């Protein structure tokens, strides 16, 4: 359900309510900050020393925003987040009011091999541009239904609704923790980790973990990357925006090893996560990432392995259940 919900960057109000319903019984306090981040606070159980741990999964999805409506009713658009033009042809998008449009491209100015966003448009089936049900500034997400393939699943928004699902399930399975936990469902990750920037400033955590997707190197003729679907959640070492804190990385590895949870180590050469913003908040926060290996990231058909998601939950529950040592 959370995979199909509407929520392009800056327009997270619908997905936020869906998640709020899921978590309100799982936290001591749930609030929404000025930017729209959904913050669930769980108090620590037991004696000190406790740490304030912030967990972040982003609610927003990549999408498009209407910039111009022509007299025939075709919509020109800009991207919200990293949209690859070649993944749009033949696909559909859906606006907040439920209207669905097809992506088309200028035949004269496009080829089958090369596609550019500014040579594309959205066709909502309008006869003309008068009284368009869509306004300039309206945002749409991709529109594809969630598909269960058995071991693996496809959805338009695994990035990062799978992270949201893992975080919700972690709150559910984590019966008690010696740490004070702030589970934050952030906004605007895809346009520059903006929700995590402000929520981390507000929460002021001692340790921060982002839960997000990562690329894989396990498809035909893929780039070199030692991450594959089904081999466990990936513990991040580096991506193009940050280096995971050495102590946090080691603590996550130890939690996986002690509980016999399969894991992979991740060096991602393109892309980053909310952890990038959290680690430089205020005086600096030791930060790491638990990644869900995902094929076809930033396309309308992102694929993850169900076991990887479940093992990510186990890993987080194990990590949060014990004192965290950062050496």
């Amino acid at each position, binding site marked *: 359900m959370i995979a199909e919900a509407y929520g392009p960057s800056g327009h997270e109000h619908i997905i936020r309510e869906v998640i709020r319903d899921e978590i309100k019984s799982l936290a001591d306090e749930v609030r929404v900050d000025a930017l729209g981040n959904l913050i669930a606070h769980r108090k620590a159980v037991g004696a000190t020393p406790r740490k304030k741990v912030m967990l972040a999964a982003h609610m927003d999805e990549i999408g498009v925003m209407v910039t111009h409506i022509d007299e025939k009713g075709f919509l020109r658009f800009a991207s919200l987040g990293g949209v690859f033009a070649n993944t749009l042809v033949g696909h559909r998008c859906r606006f907040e009011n439920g209207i669905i449009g097809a992506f088309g491209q200028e035949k004269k100015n496009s080829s089958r091999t090369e596609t550019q966003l500014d040579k594309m448009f959205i066709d909502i089936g309008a006869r003309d541009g008068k009284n368009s049900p869509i306004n300039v500034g309206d945002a749409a997400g991709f529109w594809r239904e969630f598909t269960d393939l058995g071991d693996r699943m496809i959805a338009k928004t695994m990035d990062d609704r799978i992270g949201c699902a893992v975080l919700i399930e972690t709150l559910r399975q984590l019966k008690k923790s010696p740490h004070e936990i702030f589970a934050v469902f952030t906004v605007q990750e895809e346009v520059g980790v903006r929700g995590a920037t402000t929520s981390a400033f507000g929460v002021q955590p*001692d340790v921060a973990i982002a839960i997000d997707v990562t690329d894989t190197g396990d498809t035909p003729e893929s780039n070199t990357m030692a991450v594959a679907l089904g081999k466990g959640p990936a513990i991040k*070492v*580096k991506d193009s925006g940050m*280096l995971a804190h*050495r102590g946090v*990385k080691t603590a996550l590895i130890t939690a996986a090893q002690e509980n016999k949870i399969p894991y992979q180590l991740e*060096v991602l050469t393109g892309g980053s996560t909310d952890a990038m913003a959290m680690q430089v908040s205020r*005086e*600096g926060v030791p930060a790491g990432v638990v990644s869900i290996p995902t094929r076809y990231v930033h396309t309308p058909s992102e694929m993850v392995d169900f076991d990887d998601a479940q093992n990510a939950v186990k890993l987080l529950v194990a990590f949060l259940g014990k004192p965290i040592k950062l050496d």
Partner: protein
Amino acid sequence: MSAKDFLQKLSEATGISGYEHSVRELMVEAFRPYTDEISVTPAGNVIAIKRGTRDPKSKTPAPKVLIEGHMDEIGLMVTDIERGLLRFTQVGGFDVRVLLAQEVIVHGKQPLRGIIGSRPPHVLTDAEREKVIPMPDLFVDVGVPEDKVRDLVSIGDPITLARQMISLKGNLVAGKAFDDRCALVSVVEALKHLATLKHSWDVYAVANVQEEVGLYGAMTSTFKINPDVAIALDVSHADQPNSTEVNAVPLGDGMGLAMGPNIHPLVHKKLIEVANANEIPFKVTAYAGATGTNAWAMQVVQAGIPTGLIDIPLRYMHTSVETLNLNDLERIGRLMALFCAALDEKFFKELRGDQIESEKENPKKGREGGRRRKKAKR
């Protein structure tokens, strides 16, 4: 320890961005004899404080000046293991042209010596021979068979260049990671000089992490300190054949005192005043935008920090044979000490002058401003 010996120690220590722990230990040790308090932030930055000689009866705390250099060096990181050989990516921006045939250390379960190899010239096409070999076509060979490599090396293990510092003629030295550990030598030199000077401001000597990957260390340590003036010390391109003359500072003839939107004009003016008064040679360097140094990050921390930047002349940046003149480092240390000692109440007021003026003109706004300042101060 002499500046040269200390530079050698720092240069040969290993610590890519995010993995600065061995350099951090050296810095804590180096700061200790000359400072009153030392702490390490959650991000791993070292902050050492040398308290000023402010009148103890003074009700306001002493102003703070921050001088910094960064501890991290650019390096490589294992991305995959293929038939016993290691694929890698880079941390920070190497000069990829010179990676082939370097000797390296892979920081696995134990440090492993290795070399960077690629396909030999004999099997390349003419077109391939003309090109710089892209990083995905390079690999590290540690000489261990595939089954053993996986026991010793993990994805994400750091790799550093293996290079010992060498002395050239004329007080020049060459080695790796002078960017920016040579600045830390100057910071320590400044503290040594300061021991013989009287200074009323508190001096914060900072060794930052993670400059090469986004100025992250400086952002956070500066937030914690919230100084009144911050000076970044970082390397810049020295004059050499085929270099552009813009901003190139001659090796062994002082330093660059940077100017531009990243630099507070009064801080710049003060640096020049102190240099001139003490006959320390310098050249003004101009940066129209981002300086690519920690000064850029520090300037916009908290409510804004008046920032200065010292350019340390260096040849062959981001290679394993970065070259500099030791005289420059000592001179920069001396200038920093004299600058810190020259900071007085008058300069503090001058820096704050605009705010005081606006309070006079608009008392209501001024009161609000005053309250904000007090809160931001401590």
